[in-house]
């Protein structure tokens, strides 16, 4: 199988995150591989391993679009077990919204040839819109199987489970397909020492917009269909009254709710 996993280099949510860049874009210092993408990578590795792994010709390609630093998300993916990396990078991509991002990623996936599956996380942990997987499927004309909490592939067919609030669904599609997976699908592995050493020998291909045949005007700020016109930092929440229970804290809680007119 040839599986492409989309990985994103995102600001680490453990620190304060800021929209300091041009056009209110995200400050990408202190960035890491998006936590939700680790589930996508794990799902891909499990599918490849069940088919004999890389020795049997299975490929798990970590594809990331982003500035120079995004190569770190690819390196981490290679340490975890991806077989090769592809870094789509071009100054003209800066400021791309979901529509422009999906256009560039669709072209990159086509450039990689006969791909069986494109697997993504359920959302990026920075933009958090969940738009890109669906838009990628629409642009590639492939079946979309999103928010999968289980995934099985048998021959040219895949079966997945989707859990919504009021119902659970079983979904079937033919390959090739675009799949996004939730954090319920597996327990992602950590890179081990062997993996970290092996990653040094794996190749990372760098692609520009010219390489994938995309006109710079179709992406970045100019090619995006949405624009951020303003961004304001919310004042941080401040701590209020903290009490220690002396046997009547439940009553005091109800007094507080009554005073706030919340009963």
């Amino acid at each position, binding site marked *: 199988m040839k599986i492409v996993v989309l990985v994103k280099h995102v600001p680490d*949510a*453990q620190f*304060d*995150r800021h*929209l300091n860049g041009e056009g*209110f874009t*995200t400050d990408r210092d202190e960035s890491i591989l998006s936590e939700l993408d680790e589930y996508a990578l794990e799902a891909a590795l499990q599918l490849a391993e069940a088919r004999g792994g890389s020795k049997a010709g299975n490929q798990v390609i970590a594809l990331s679009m982003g500035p120079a630093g995004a190569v770190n998300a690819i390196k981490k993916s290679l340490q975890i077990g991806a077989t090769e990396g592809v870094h789509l990078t071009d100054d003209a991509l800066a400021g791309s919204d*979901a529509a422009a991002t*999906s256009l560039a990623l669709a072209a990159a996936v086509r450039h990689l040839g006969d791909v069986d599956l494109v697997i993504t996380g359920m959302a990026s*942990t920075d933009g958090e*819109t*969940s*738009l890109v997987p*669906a*838009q990628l*499927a*629409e*642009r590639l*004309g492939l*079946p*979309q*199987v*999103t928010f999968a909490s289980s995934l099985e592939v048998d021959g040219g067919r895949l079966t997945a489970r*989707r*859990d*919504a*609030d009021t*119902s*659970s*669904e*079983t*979904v*079937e599609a033919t390959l090739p397909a675009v799949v996004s997976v939730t954090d319920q699908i597996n327990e992602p592995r950590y890179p081990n020492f062997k993996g970290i050493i092996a990653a040094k020998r794996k190749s990372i291909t760098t692609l520009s917009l010219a390489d994938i045949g995309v006109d710079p005007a179709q992406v970045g700020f100019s090619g*995006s*269909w*949405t*624009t951020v016109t*303003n*961004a*304001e*930092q*919310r004042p941080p*929440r401040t*701590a*209020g*009254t*903290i*009490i220690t*229970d002396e046997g009547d*804290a*439940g*009553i*005091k*809680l*109800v007094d*507080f*709710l*009554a005073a706030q007119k*919340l*009963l």
Partner: protein
Amino acid sequence: MAKVLVFIDNPGASLKKSSLELLTLARSLGESAVALNGELSDGVAAAFGEYGVGTVIRPSTDDLDDFLVAPKAAYLAAAAEAAGAGIVLLDNSPEGKEIAARLGIRLNAGVITDVVAVDADGTGHKSVLAGSYNTACKATTPVSVLTLKANNVTPEPAAAPTTPEAATVEVPAGSSTAAARITAREQKVATGRPDLTDARIVVAGGRGMDGDFGPVEELADALGAAVGASRAATDAGWISHDAQVGQTGKTVSPQLYISAGISGAIQQKAGMQTSKVIVAINKDAESPVFEIADFGIVGDVFDVLPQAAAEIKKRKG
């Protein structure tokens, strides 16, 4: 005047509050029409009139529910073109956002998700990076697609009710050929409590509940609240994953969020810190949740929650 199309998917016997919010917002932005999927019951038809809907569009086929997202987006794109819509509004559920995503590609339209308010010019307001920024976004395309978070608009019937016209739109041929098929659907057992994302009050439990969500549920029921949970509690299997609040679960912004036995790591905070009032109960005084709580109690959840539930029942009589 702008034409605004609202997508309403399988409303059943009556419109949900979030659908009424969409119709109210649509009317404030221009002439509203509805693209419906599923049965049109008498109750829903009457509500469309009360909320001033001009036209109710329905698809030419009844098999859209057999497929995932793609054919619904194809239908909605055809409906938007037929209605001449400049703005398309959907709910902010995972499926609503995905239909919006594909609709955007089909209509060459900018998509803005997680919107809490929309200006007359189509600018959407939203909160990003786990509630640390408020942003204003605008589509630069002739059509804008926006998904509206629940609980941000007060539903209000129109001053002058309408008698909506009926229209049918042809679902584009081939729109289900490359779509994933839904082969089985299992309904989940209804809890009788409000939906977590729509609820006015949420009571959430975490690791500190130590396997027993009884006190959380008892307080939630006394308050008429929804039950939420931290990832630690859902991963432990103490409560359904549907209840998870946080970065990888649901984002809620109720009037009141009561956090019980949750330390308040950044991933949990991401899902609840835009709540109006936050109350935290935890036996560890150093828990980060106390940094953002309006009212905090350092104490044992198994003492405080039952006492509060009993006191509320007493006061409510």
